Protein backbone atom coordinates (compact mmCIF):
# COMPACT_ATOMS: atom_id res chain seq x y z
CA UNK A 1 0.00 0.00 0.00
CA UNK A 2 2.88 2.32 -0.83
CA UNK A 3 0.76 4.64 -2.95
CA UNK A 4 -2.46 4.24 -0.94
CA UNK A 5 -0.94 5.43 2.34
CA UNK A 6 0.63 8.51 0.76
CA UNK A 7 -2.58 9.28 -1.11
CA UNK A 8 -4.49 9.17 2.17
CA UNK A 9 -1.90 11.28 3.94
CA UNK A 10 -1.42 13.96 1.29
CA UNK A 11 -4.89 13.95 -0.27
CA UNK A 12 -6.88 13.70 2.96
CA UNK A 13 -9.39 16.31 1.83
CA UNK A 14 -10.51 14.09 -1.04
CA UNK A 15 -11.44 11.38 1.45
CA UNK A 16 -12.95 13.65 4.10
CA UNK A 17 -16.52 13.47 2.79
CA UNK A 18 -16.58 9.67 2.68
CA UNK A 19 -14.90 9.49 6.10
CA UNK A 20 -17.55 11.76 7.61
CA UNK A 21 -20.39 9.75 6.04
CA UNK A 22 -18.96 6.47 7.36
CA UNK A 23 -18.39 8.00 10.80
CA UNK A 24 -22.02 9.21 10.88
CA UNK A 25 -23.25 5.74 9.95
CA UNK A 26 -21.03 4.31 12.71
CA UNK A 27 -22.41 6.82 15.24
CA UNK A 28 -25.98 5.94 14.25
CA UNK A 29 -25.27 2.21 14.37
CA UNK A 30 -23.67 2.48 17.80
CA UNK A 31 -26.52 4.56 19.23
CA UNK A 32 -29.05 2.13 17.72
CA UNK A 33 -27.11 -0.77 19.15
CA UNK A 34 -27.18 0.93 22.56
CA UNK A 35 -30.90 1.57 22.19
CA UNK A 36 -31.57 -2.02 21.11
CA UNK A 37 -29.59 -3.40 24.05
CA UNK A 38 -31.23 -0.93 26.40
CA UNK A 39 -34.74 -1.66 25.18
CA UNK A 40 -34.26 -5.41 25.37
CA UNK A 41 -32.61 -5.19 28.78
CA UNK A 42 -35.34 -2.89 30.00
CA UNK A 43 -38.08 -5.18 28.75
CA UNK A 44 -36.74 -8.30 30.42
CA UNK A 45 -34.90 -6.89 33.42
CA UNK A 46 -37.57 -8.23 35.77
CA UNK A 47 -37.19 -11.81 34.55
CA UNK A 48 -33.41 -11.49 34.45
CA UNK A 49 -33.30 -10.39 38.09
CA UNK A 50 -35.27 -13.38 39.36
CA UNK A 51 -33.06 -16.28 40.56
CA UNK A 52 -34.43 -19.11 38.42
CA UNK A 53 -32.84 -20.99 35.51
CA UNK A 54 -35.86 -22.28 33.65
CA UNK A 55 -39.58 -21.67 33.34
CA UNK A 56 -42.25 -24.30 32.63
CA UNK A 57 -45.16 -22.93 30.64
CA UNK A 58 -48.38 -24.61 29.53
CA UNK A 59 -47.94 -26.52 26.27
CA UNK A 60 -47.88 -24.17 23.24
CA UNK A 61 -47.78 -20.98 25.33
CA UNK A 62 -44.54 -19.93 23.61
CA UNK A 63 -43.17 -18.22 26.73
CA UNK A 64 -46.23 -15.98 27.00
CA UNK A 65 -47.57 -15.84 30.55
CA UNK A 66 -51.10 -14.86 29.47
CA UNK A 67 -51.37 -18.04 27.36
CA UNK A 68 -50.22 -20.31 30.15
CA UNK A 69 -52.36 -21.53 33.03
CA UNK A 70 -51.11 -24.36 35.24
CA UNK A 71 -52.49 -26.15 38.29
CA UNK A 72 -50.86 -27.62 41.42
CA UNK A 73 -50.41 -31.19 40.04
CA UNK A 74 -47.97 -29.83 37.45
CA UNK A 75 -46.02 -28.09 40.17
CA UNK A 76 -45.95 -31.28 42.24
CA UNK A 77 -44.51 -33.25 39.33
CA UNK A 78 -41.55 -30.89 39.07
CA UNK A 79 -41.14 -30.44 42.83
CA UNK A 80 -40.87 -34.23 43.18
CA UNK A 81 -37.75 -34.36 41.00
CA UNK A 82 -34.57 -34.78 43.04
CA UNK A 83 -32.26 -31.77 42.88
CA UNK A 84 -34.96 -29.54 41.40
CA UNK A 85 -36.49 -26.57 43.15
CA UNK A 86 -39.89 -25.59 41.74
CA UNK A 87 -42.18 -22.74 42.67
CA UNK A 88 -45.34 -21.29 41.10
CA UNK A 89 -45.26 -17.89 39.45
CA UNK A 90 -48.27 -15.81 38.54
CA UNK A 91 -47.71 -13.07 35.98
CA UNK A 92 -50.14 -10.63 34.40
CA UNK A 93 -50.52 -6.96 33.56
CA UNK A 94 -52.80 -4.73 35.62
CA UNK A 95 -53.65 -1.12 36.17
CA UNK A 96 -53.10 0.16 39.69
CA UNK A 97 -55.25 3.22 40.36
CA UNK A 98 -54.24 5.39 43.33
CA UNK A 99 -56.78 5.66 46.10
CA UNK A 100 -55.23 8.53 48.04
CA UNK A 101 -53.46 10.35 45.21
CA UNK A 102 -50.16 9.58 43.47
CA UNK A 103 -49.35 8.38 39.99
CA UNK A 104 -51.55 5.93 38.12
CA UNK A 105 -49.53 2.82 37.43
CA UNK A 106 -49.61 0.15 34.72
CA UNK A 107 -47.70 -2.70 36.27
CA UNK A 108 -46.57 -6.22 35.52
CA UNK A 109 -48.01 -8.03 38.52
CA UNK A 110 -45.95 -11.01 39.67
CA UNK A 111 -47.48 -13.34 42.25
CA UNK A 112 -44.94 -15.39 44.22
CA UNK A 113 -45.08 -17.63 47.29
CA UNK A 114 -43.48 -15.87 50.26
CA UNK A 115 -41.43 -18.98 51.06
CA UNK A 116 -40.21 -19.63 47.50
CA UNK A 117 -36.60 -19.40 46.36
CA UNK A 118 -37.60 -16.46 44.21
CA UNK A 119 -37.92 -14.28 47.32
CA UNK A 120 -34.49 -13.98 48.80
CA UNK A 121 -34.77 -11.01 51.16
CA UNK A 122 -36.11 -11.78 54.64
CA UNK A 123 -38.03 -8.50 54.84
CA UNK A 124 -39.71 -9.28 51.54
CA UNK A 125 -40.67 -12.75 52.76
CA UNK A 126 -42.17 -11.21 55.88
CA UNK A 127 -44.02 -8.57 53.89
CA UNK A 128 -45.47 -11.07 51.40
CA UNK A 129 -46.61 -13.46 54.14
CA UNK A 130 -48.37 -10.77 56.15
CA UNK A 131 -51.08 -8.32 55.13
CA UNK A 132 -51.77 -8.52 51.39
CA UNK A 133 -49.99 -5.69 49.59
CA UNK A 134 -47.56 -4.72 46.87
CA UNK A 135 -43.77 -4.61 46.73
CA UNK A 136 -42.90 -2.30 43.88
CA UNK A 137 -39.85 -1.81 41.76
CA UNK A 138 -37.67 0.92 43.23
CA UNK A 139 -37.93 3.21 40.16
CA UNK A 140 -41.54 3.94 41.16
CA UNK A 141 -40.32 5.45 44.40
CA UNK A 142 -38.64 8.13 42.25
CA UNK A 143 -42.01 8.83 40.64
CA UNK A 144 -43.55 9.75 43.96
CA UNK A 145 -45.03 6.46 45.17
CA UNK A 146 -44.63 6.00 48.92
CA UNK A 147 -44.92 3.08 51.35
CA UNK A 148 -48.49 3.00 52.62
CA UNK A 149 -50.03 4.44 49.42
CA UNK A 150 -53.08 2.42 48.47
CA UNK A 151 -53.88 1.20 44.95
CA UNK A 152 -56.95 -0.45 43.51
CA UNK A 153 -55.97 -3.29 41.20
CA UNK A 154 -57.80 -3.59 37.87
CA UNK A 155 -61.13 -5.25 37.50
CA UNK A 156 -60.77 -7.10 40.79
CA UNK A 157 -61.44 -3.86 42.61
CA UNK A 158 -59.08 -5.03 45.30
CA UNK A 159 -57.29 -2.27 47.20
CA UNK A 160 -53.75 -3.01 48.35
CA UNK A 161 -51.19 -0.92 50.21
CA UNK A 162 -47.61 -0.44 49.07
CA UNK A 163 -45.50 -2.55 51.47
CA UNK A 164 -42.07 -1.54 50.21
CA UNK A 165 -39.67 -1.25 47.27
CA UNK A 166 -37.01 -3.53 45.83
CA UNK A 167 -34.97 -3.78 42.66
CA UNK A 168 -37.48 -5.65 40.54
CA UNK A 169 -36.99 -4.12 37.09
CA UNK A 170 -39.63 -4.28 34.40
CA UNK A 171 -41.36 -6.86 32.24
CA UNK A 172 -42.54 -5.78 28.78
CA UNK A 173 -41.46 -2.26 29.82
CA UNK A 174 -44.05 -2.24 32.66
CA UNK A 175 -42.68 -1.80 36.20
CA UNK A 176 -42.98 -4.98 38.24
CA UNK A 177 -45.18 -5.19 41.32
CA UNK A 178 -44.75 -8.28 43.50
CA UNK A 179 -47.56 -9.61 45.57
CA UNK A 180 -48.28 -12.93 47.24
CA UNK A 181 -49.45 -15.75 44.97
CA UNK A 182 -52.79 -15.87 46.79
CA UNK A 183 -53.38 -12.15 46.21
CA UNK A 184 -52.40 -12.48 42.57
CA UNK A 185 -54.86 -15.36 42.15
CA UNK A 186 -57.54 -13.27 43.82
CA UNK A 187 -56.90 -10.39 41.37
CA UNK A 188 -56.64 -12.67 38.36
CA UNK A 189 -59.40 -15.21 38.97
CA UNK A 190 -61.45 -13.86 41.89
CA UNK A 191 -62.73 -16.70 44.06
CA UNK A 192 -62.45 -19.30 41.27
CA UNK A 193 -58.69 -19.53 41.12
CA UNK A 194 -58.58 -23.22 41.98
CA UNK A 195 -54.82 -22.92 42.67
CA UNK A 196 -54.03 -21.74 39.16
CA UNK A 197 -50.86 -19.83 38.29
CA UNK A 198 -49.00 -18.88 35.08
CA UNK A 199 -45.74 -20.78 35.09
CA UNK A 200 -43.35 -22.79 37.23
CA UNK A 201 -39.96 -21.31 38.06
CA UNK A 202 -37.28 -24.00 38.19
CA UNK A 203 -33.80 -24.09 39.67
CA UNK A 204 -31.21 -26.85 40.09
CA UNK A 205 -30.51 -29.80 37.84
CA UNK A 206 -32.19 -30.27 34.48
CA UNK A 207 -32.31 -34.04 34.95
CA UNK A 208 -35.83 -35.38 34.68
CA UNK A 209 -37.32 -32.11 33.42
CA UNK A 210 -38.18 -33.53 29.99
CA UNK A 211 -40.03 -36.43 31.59
CA UNK A 212 -41.96 -34.10 33.90
CA UNK A 213 -42.77 -31.77 31.02
CA UNK A 214 -44.17 -34.65 28.99
CA UNK A 215 -46.24 -35.93 31.89
CA UNK A 216 -47.69 -32.53 32.73
CA UNK A 217 -48.12 -31.23 29.15
CA UNK A 218 -45.80 -28.31 29.79
CA UNK A 219 -42.83 -26.79 27.93
CA UNK A 220 -39.60 -26.08 29.81
CA UNK A 221 -37.70 -23.05 28.52
CA UNK A 222 -34.38 -21.60 29.57
CA UNK A 223 -34.34 -18.07 30.93
CA UNK A 224 -33.03 -16.70 27.61
CA UNK A 225 -35.76 -18.54 25.70
CA UNK A 226 -38.38 -17.17 28.11
CA UNK A 227 -37.37 -13.58 27.23
CA UNK A 228 -38.98 -14.03 23.81
CA UNK A 229 -42.40 -14.02 25.49
CA UNK A 230 -41.87 -10.53 26.88
CA UNK A 231 -44.30 -8.20 25.08
CA UNK A 232 -42.52 -6.33 22.31
CA UNK A 233 -39.27 -8.29 22.73
CA UNK A 234 -39.33 -10.03 19.35
CA UNK A 235 -40.67 -6.96 17.54
CA UNK A 236 -38.03 -4.73 19.10
CA UNK A 237 -35.11 -7.03 18.39
CA UNK A 238 -36.33 -7.69 14.83
CA UNK A 239 -36.83 -3.99 14.12
CA UNK A 240 -33.44 -3.03 15.50
CA UNK A 241 -31.72 -5.86 13.63
CA UNK A 242 -33.38 -4.75 10.39
CA UNK A 243 -32.39 -1.11 10.91
CA UNK A 244 -28.81 -2.15 11.58
CA UNK A 245 -28.79 -4.47 8.57
CA UNK A 246 -30.05 -1.66 6.33
CA UNK A 247 -27.41 0.67 7.74
CA UNK A 248 -24.74 -1.88 6.87
CA UNK A 249 -26.12 -2.27 3.33
CA UNK A 250 -26.31 1.53 2.89
CA UNK A 251 -22.78 1.85 4.21
CA UNK A 252 -21.49 -0.81 1.80
CA UNK A 253 -23.29 0.85 -1.14
CA UNK A 254 -21.98 4.33 -0.27
CA UNK A 255 -18.43 3.03 -0.01
CA UNK A 256 -18.84 1.00 -3.20
CA UNK A 257 -20.17 4.04 -5.09
CA UNK A 258 -17.38 6.26 -3.78
CA UNK A 259 -14.71 3.72 -4.61
CA UNK A 260 -16.13 3.31 -8.11
CA UNK A 261 -15.99 7.09 -8.66
CA UNK A 262 -12.47 7.12 -7.25
CA UNK A 263 -11.48 4.29 -9.60
CA UNK A 264 -12.89 6.16 -12.61
CA UNK A 265 -11.00 9.30 -11.55
CA UNK A 266 -7.82 7.28 -11.16
CA UNK A 267 -8.10 5.29 -14.38
CA UNK A 268 -4.96 6.87 -15.85
CA UNK A 269 -3.03 6.32 -12.61
CA UNK A 270 -4.11 2.68 -12.55
CA UNK A 271 -3.02 2.36 -16.18
CA UNK A 272 0.30 3.94 -15.25
CA UNK A 273 0.82 1.47 -12.41
CA UNK A 274 0.07 -1.40 -14.76
CA UNK A 275 2.45 0.05 -17.37
CA UNK A 276 5.13 -0.05 -14.67
CA UNK A 277 4.43 -3.76 -14.33
CA UNK A 278 2.09 -3.72 -11.35
CA UNK A 279 -0.24 -6.72 -11.41
CA UNK A 280 -4.02 -6.48 -10.97
CA UNK A 281 -3.47 -7.91 -7.48
CA UNK A 282 -1.03 -5.11 -6.62
CA UNK A 283 -3.44 -2.41 -7.83
CA UNK A 284 -6.42 -4.00 -6.03
CA UNK A 285 -4.48 -4.45 -2.79
CA UNK A 286 -3.51 -0.81 -2.96
CA UNK A 287 -7.06 0.44 -3.60
CA UNK A 288 -8.92 -1.90 -1.27
CA UNK A 289 -6.27 -1.44 1.40
CA UNK A 290 -6.79 2.31 1.14
CA UNK A 291 -10.56 1.87 1.59
CA UNK A 292 -9.99 -0.55 4.50
CA UNK A 293 -7.79 1.98 6.31
CA UNK A 294 -10.22 4.84 5.66
CA UNK A 295 -13.26 2.78 6.68
CA UNK A 296 -11.49 1.50 9.81
CA UNK A 297 -10.42 4.96 10.98
CA UNK A 298 -13.84 6.50 10.24
CA UNK A 299 -15.75 3.58 11.80
CA UNK A 300 -13.66 3.48 14.97
CA UNK A 301 -13.98 7.27 15.34
CA UNK A 302 -17.74 7.04 14.80
CA UNK A 303 -18.12 4.15 17.23
CA UNK A 304 -16.15 6.05 19.90
CA UNK A 305 -18.33 9.14 19.46
CA UNK A 306 -21.47 6.95 19.40
CA UNK A 307 -20.25 5.17 22.55
CA UNK A 308 -19.85 8.52 24.32
CA UNK A 309 -23.36 9.51 23.24
CA UNK A 310 -24.81 6.24 24.54
CA UNK A 311 -22.89 6.69 27.79
CA UNK A 312 -24.32 10.20 28.16
CA UNK A 313 -27.85 8.98 27.35
CA UNK A 314 -27.53 6.14 29.86
CA UNK A 315 -27.44 8.80 32.58
CA UNK A 316 -30.98 9.83 31.55
CA UNK A 317 -34.20 7.76 31.78
CA UNK A 318 -33.74 6.75 28.11
CA UNK A 319 -33.50 2.93 27.80
CA UNK A 320 -29.96 2.71 26.42
CA UNK A 321 -27.09 0.47 27.46
CA UNK A 322 -23.54 0.23 26.20
CA UNK A 323 -22.83 -3.41 25.44
CA UNK A 324 -19.20 -3.96 24.42
CA UNK A 325 -19.71 -7.16 22.38
CA UNK A 326 -22.57 -5.44 20.50
CA UNK A 327 -20.39 -2.37 19.84
CA UNK A 328 -17.54 -4.62 18.69
CA UNK A 329 -19.99 -6.36 16.34
CA UNK A 330 -21.09 -2.99 14.92
CA UNK A 331 -17.45 -2.00 14.36
CA UNK A 332 -16.45 -5.23 12.66
CA UNK A 333 -19.65 -5.37 10.58
CA UNK A 334 -19.20 -1.83 9.27
CA UNK A 335 -15.56 -2.43 8.37
CA UNK A 336 -16.40 -5.70 6.61
CA UNK A 337 -19.36 -4.04 4.81
CA UNK A 338 -17.04 -1.23 3.70
CA UNK A 339 -14.45 -3.62 2.33
CA UNK A 340 -17.15 -5.65 0.57
CA UNK A 341 -18.52 -2.40 -0.85
CA UNK A 342 -15.13 -1.47 -2.25
CA UNK A 343 -14.99 -4.84 -4.02
CA UNK A 344 -17.76 -3.60 -6.35
CA UNK A 345 -15.06 -1.72 -8.26
CA UNK A 346 -12.99 -4.93 -8.56
CA UNK A 347 -13.96 -5.56 -12.18
CA UNK A 348 -13.45 -1.94 -13.19
CA UNK A 349 -9.91 -1.95 -11.78
CA UNK A 350 -8.97 -5.19 -13.52
CA UNK A 351 -10.33 -3.90 -16.84
CA UNK A 352 -8.15 -0.77 -16.94
CA UNK A 353 -5.69 -1.22 -19.78
CA UNK A 354 -2.05 -0.23 -19.23
CA UNK A 355 -2.09 1.46 -22.68
CA UNK A 356 -4.18 4.22 -21.04
CA UNK A 357 -0.87 5.51 -19.66
CA UNK A 358 0.13 6.46 -23.22
CA UNK A 359 -3.34 7.76 -24.00
CA UNK A 360 -3.91 4.82 -26.34
CA UNK A 361 -7.29 3.07 -26.41
CA UNK A 362 -7.03 -0.67 -26.96
Amino acid at each position, binding site marked *: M*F*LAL*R*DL*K*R*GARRFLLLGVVIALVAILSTVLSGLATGLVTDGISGLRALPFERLAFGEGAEATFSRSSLRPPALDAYAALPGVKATPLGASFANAAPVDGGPNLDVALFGVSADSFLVQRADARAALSGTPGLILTSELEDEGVKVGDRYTLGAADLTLPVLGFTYAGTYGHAPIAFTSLETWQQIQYGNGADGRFSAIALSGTDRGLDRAAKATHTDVLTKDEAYAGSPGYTAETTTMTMIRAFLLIISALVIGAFFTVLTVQRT*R*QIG*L*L*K*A*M*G*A*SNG*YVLRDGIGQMAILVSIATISGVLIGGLLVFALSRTPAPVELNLPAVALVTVSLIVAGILGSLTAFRRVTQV*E*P*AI*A*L*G*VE*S
Partner: protein
Amino acid sequence: MTNQPALSLDGVRVAFRDGLDERAVLDDLSLDVAGGELLVVSGRSGAGKSTLLAVAGLLRRADHGDVRIDGTSTAALNERRRSVVRRDHIAFVYQSANLFPSLTAVEQLELVGHIRNEPSGEVRHRARALLEDLDLADRADQLPAQMSGGERQRVGIARALMASPTVLIADEPTASLDPERAKVVAELLASAAHDRDIATLVVAHDSAALQHADRHLRLDSGRLHHVED
Protein backbone atom coordinates in the same frame (compact mmCIF):
# COMPACT_ATOMS: atom_id res chain seq x y z
CA MET B 1 26.20 -0.72 -28.67
CA THR B 2 25.79 -4.52 -28.87
CA ASN B 3 24.71 -6.54 -31.91
CA GLN B 4 21.88 -8.40 -30.17
CA PRO B 5 18.64 -6.38 -30.64
CA ALA B 6 17.16 -5.68 -27.24
CA LEU B 7 13.82 -4.85 -28.85
CA SER B 8 12.49 -6.51 -31.99
CA LEU B 9 9.17 -6.08 -33.70
CA ASP B 10 8.52 -8.71 -36.31
CA GLY B 11 5.68 -8.41 -38.84
CA VAL B 12 3.50 -6.39 -36.49
CA ARG B 13 0.06 -5.42 -37.69
CA VAL B 14 -2.52 -3.33 -35.81
CA ALA B 15 -5.72 -2.26 -37.51
CA PHE B 16 -8.72 -0.24 -36.34
CA ARG B 17 -12.26 -0.32 -37.60
CA ASP B 18 -13.21 2.84 -39.42
CA GLY B 19 -16.90 2.45 -40.16
CA LEU B 20 -17.15 -0.55 -42.47
CA ASP B 21 -13.49 -0.30 -43.40
CA GLU B 22 -10.43 -1.45 -41.55
CA ARG B 23 -7.45 0.89 -41.33
CA ALA B 24 -4.02 -0.57 -40.56
CA VAL B 25 -1.94 1.84 -38.49
CA LEU B 26 0.92 -0.65 -38.27
CA ASP B 27 1.19 -2.84 -41.33
CA ASP B 28 3.59 -5.77 -41.31
CA LEU B 29 6.05 -3.56 -39.46
CA SER B 30 9.44 -4.87 -38.42
CA LEU B 31 12.01 -3.07 -36.32
CA ASP B 32 15.14 -3.84 -34.33
CA VAL B 33 16.59 -1.59 -31.64
CA ALA B 34 19.93 -2.58 -30.19
CA GLY B 35 21.02 -2.04 -26.61
CA GLY B 36 22.50 1.44 -26.26
CA GLU B 37 20.81 2.70 -29.43
CA LEU B 38 18.57 5.77 -29.46
CA LEU B 39 15.99 5.42 -32.21
CA VAL B 40 13.67 8.32 -32.92
CA VAL B 41 10.41 7.79 -34.78
CA SER B 42 8.46 10.70 -36.16
CA GLY B 43 5.30 10.91 -38.20
CA ARG B 44 2.23 12.98 -38.75
CA SER B 45 -0.54 13.10 -36.18
CA GLY B 46 -2.63 9.92 -36.24
CA ALA B 47 0.07 7.94 -38.07
CA GLY B 48 0.11 5.35 -35.26
CA LYS B 49 3.22 6.43 -33.36
CA SER B 50 1.62 5.96 -29.91
CA THR B 51 0.23 2.60 -31.02
CA LEU B 52 3.73 1.61 -32.09
CA LEU B 53 5.05 2.53 -28.63
CA ALA B 54 2.17 0.71 -26.90
CA VAL B 55 2.89 -2.47 -28.89
CA ALA B 56 6.66 -2.21 -28.42
CA GLY B 57 6.18 -1.59 -24.68
CA LEU B 58 3.76 -4.54 -24.33
CA LEU B 59 0.96 -2.19 -23.30
CA ARG B 60 -1.27 -3.59 -26.01
CA ARG B 61 -1.21 -6.64 -28.25
CA ALA B 62 -0.65 -6.55 -31.97
CA ASP B 63 -3.27 -8.18 -34.18
CA HIS B 64 -0.46 -10.10 -35.83
CA GLY B 65 3.28 -10.40 -35.36
CA ASP B 66 5.58 -10.65 -32.40
CA VAL B 67 7.52 -8.42 -30.06
CA ARG B 68 10.77 -9.81 -28.69
CA ILE B 69 12.43 -8.33 -25.63
CA ASP B 70 16.07 -9.34 -25.27
CA GLY B 71 15.39 -12.17 -27.71
CA THR B 72 12.37 -13.52 -25.81
CA SER B 73 9.13 -13.78 -27.78
CA THR B 74 6.12 -12.26 -26.03
CA ALA B 75 3.34 -13.13 -28.50
CA ALA B 76 2.19 -16.20 -26.61
CA LEU B 77 2.49 -14.73 -23.09
CA ASN B 78 -0.65 -14.15 -21.03
CA GLU B 79 -1.33 -10.72 -19.51
CA ARG B 80 0.24 -11.65 -16.20
CA ARG B 81 3.49 -12.75 -17.82
CA ARG B 82 3.50 -9.66 -20.06
CA SER B 83 3.19 -7.44 -16.99
CA VAL B 84 6.16 -9.25 -15.43
CA VAL B 85 8.22 -8.63 -18.61
CA ARG B 86 7.19 -4.97 -18.52
CA ARG B 87 8.13 -4.71 -14.87
CA ASP B 88 11.53 -6.31 -15.33
CA HIS B 89 12.60 -5.04 -18.76
CA ILE B 90 10.64 -2.02 -19.98
CA ALA B 91 10.31 1.56 -18.75
CA PHE B 92 8.36 4.51 -20.07
CA VAL B 93 8.83 8.26 -20.25
CA TYR B 94 5.67 10.18 -21.07
CA GLN B 95 4.95 13.52 -22.68
CA SER B 96 3.47 14.95 -19.47
CA ALA B 97 5.76 13.10 -17.02
CA ASN B 98 2.74 11.24 -15.58
CA LEU B 99 3.98 11.50 -12.01
CA PHE B 100 1.76 10.46 -9.11
CA PRO B 101 0.56 13.70 -7.46
CA SER B 102 0.79 12.35 -3.91
CA LEU B 103 4.37 11.06 -4.18
CA THR B 104 7.54 13.07 -3.73
CA ALA B 105 10.29 12.77 -6.32
CA VAL B 106 12.16 10.11 -4.37
CA GLU B 107 8.93 8.20 -3.74
CA GLN B 108 8.16 8.18 -7.49
CA LEU B 109 11.37 6.18 -7.85
CA GLU B 110 10.78 4.08 -4.76
CA LEU B 111 7.41 2.98 -6.16
CA VAL B 112 9.29 1.17 -8.93
CA GLY B 113 11.19 -0.86 -6.33
CA HIS B 114 7.99 -1.43 -4.34
CA ILE B 115 6.21 -2.87 -7.38
CA ARG B 116 9.22 -5.14 -7.88
CA ASN B 117 9.07 -6.14 -4.21
CA GLU B 118 12.65 -5.03 -3.58
CA PRO B 119 13.96 -4.26 -0.06
CA SER B 120 12.86 -0.73 0.83
CA GLY B 121 16.15 0.42 2.39
CA GLU B 122 18.18 -0.48 -0.67
CA VAL B 123 15.52 1.03 -2.97
CA ARG B 124 15.53 4.34 -1.09
CA HIS B 125 19.32 4.52 -1.26
CA ARG B 126 19.34 3.78 -4.99
CA ALA B 127 16.54 6.28 -5.65
CA ARG B 128 18.39 9.11 -3.91
CA ALA B 129 21.62 8.23 -5.72
CA LEU B 130 19.82 8.30 -9.07
CA LEU B 131 18.22 11.68 -8.33
CA GLU B 132 21.66 12.97 -7.42
CA ASP B 133 23.07 11.65 -10.73
CA LEU B 134 20.38 13.58 -12.56
CA ASP B 135 21.04 16.72 -10.54
CA LEU B 136 17.68 16.43 -8.77
CA ALA B 137 18.88 15.82 -5.20
CA ASP B 138 17.39 19.10 -3.98
CA ARG B 139 13.99 18.11 -5.38
CA ALA B 140 13.93 14.65 -3.79
CA ASP B 141 11.33 15.48 -1.15
CA GLN B 142 9.12 17.71 -3.26
CA LEU B 143 5.76 16.81 -4.73
CA PRO B 144 5.15 17.17 -8.50
CA ALA B 145 3.06 20.29 -7.90
CA GLN B 146 6.14 21.95 -6.41
CA MET B 147 8.37 21.27 -9.45
CA SER B 148 8.76 22.92 -12.84
CA GLY B 149 7.78 21.09 -16.04
CA GLY B 150 11.42 20.30 -16.84
CA GLU B 151 12.07 18.97 -13.35
CA ARG B 152 8.98 16.78 -13.51
CA GLN B 153 10.15 15.35 -16.82
CA ARG B 154 13.63 14.66 -15.42
CA VAL B 155 12.05 12.91 -12.43
CA GLY B 156 10.00 10.90 -14.95
CA ILE B 157 13.26 9.86 -16.66
CA ALA B 158 14.84 9.03 -13.30
CA ARG B 159 11.81 6.86 -12.48
CA ALA B 160 12.26 5.04 -15.80
CA LEU B 161 15.98 4.49 -15.15
CA MET B 162 15.19 3.23 -11.63
CA ALA B 163 13.82 0.09 -13.28
CA SER B 164 17.25 -0.57 -14.93
CA PRO B 165 15.33 -1.33 -18.12
CA THR B 166 16.47 -3.21 -21.19
CA VAL B 167 14.10 -1.09 -23.27
CA LEU B 168 13.09 2.52 -22.73
CA ILE B 169 9.99 3.83 -24.49
CA ALA B 170 9.55 7.61 -24.62
CA ASP B 171 6.45 9.31 -25.99
CA GLU B 172 7.25 12.88 -27.09
CA PRO B 173 9.25 13.54 -23.92
CA THR B 174 10.27 17.06 -24.95
CA ALA B 175 7.09 18.21 -26.66
CA SER B 176 5.68 20.14 -23.71
CA LEU B 177 8.96 21.82 -22.72
CA ASP B 178 10.57 25.07 -23.80
CA PRO B 179 13.63 24.66 -26.10
CA GLU B 180 16.17 25.02 -23.31
CA ARG B 181 14.55 22.42 -21.06
CA ALA B 182 13.84 20.18 -24.08
CA LYS B 183 17.55 20.18 -24.85
CA VAL B 184 18.44 19.10 -21.28
CA VAL B 185 15.87 16.29 -21.33
CA ALA B 186 16.97 15.09 -24.78
CA GLU B 187 20.60 15.00 -23.67
CA LEU B 188 19.60 13.11 -20.58
CA LEU B 189 17.75 10.48 -22.60
CA ALA B 190 20.65 10.12 -25.02
CA SER B 191 23.24 9.70 -22.27
CA ALA B 192 20.94 7.24 -20.46
CA ALA B 193 20.66 5.16 -23.64
CA HIS B 194 24.36 5.23 -24.44
CA ASP B 195 25.84 5.01 -20.93
CA ARG B 196 23.44 2.41 -19.58
CA ASP B 197 23.16 0.33 -22.76
CA ILE B 198 19.38 0.79 -22.99
CA ALA B 199 17.52 0.28 -26.26
CA THR B 200 15.62 3.56 -26.45
CA LEU B 201 12.64 4.09 -28.74
CA VAL B 202 11.50 7.69 -28.81
CA VAL B 203 8.60 9.28 -30.62
CA ALA B 204 9.49 12.92 -31.22
CA HIS B 205 9.30 15.74 -33.76
CA ASP B 206 11.46 18.44 -32.29
CA SER B 207 15.08 19.05 -33.16
CA ALA B 208 16.18 18.65 -29.52
CA ALA B 209 15.35 14.97 -29.60
CA LEU B 210 16.27 14.39 -33.23
CA GLN B 211 19.79 15.72 -32.99
CA HIS B 212 20.74 13.00 -30.50
CA ALA B 213 19.19 10.15 -32.48
CA ASP B 214 21.39 7.29 -33.62
CA ARG B 215 18.70 6.52 -36.18
CA HIS B 216 15.64 8.42 -37.33
CA LEU B 217 12.64 6.64 -38.89
CA ARG B 218 9.38 8.05 -40.13
CA LEU B 219 6.10 6.21 -39.66
CA ASP B 220 3.84 6.57 -42.64
CA SER B 221 0.97 4.38 -43.86
CA GLY B 222 1.73 1.81 -41.22
CA ARG B 223 5.38 1.35 -42.23
CA LEU B 224 8.69 2.79 -41.12
CA HIS B 225 10.90 4.70 -43.54
CA HIS B 226 14.51 5.66 -43.02
CA VAL B 227 15.11 9.42 -42.77
CA GLU B 228 18.44 11.04 -43.60
CA ASP B 229 18.98 13.98 -41.25
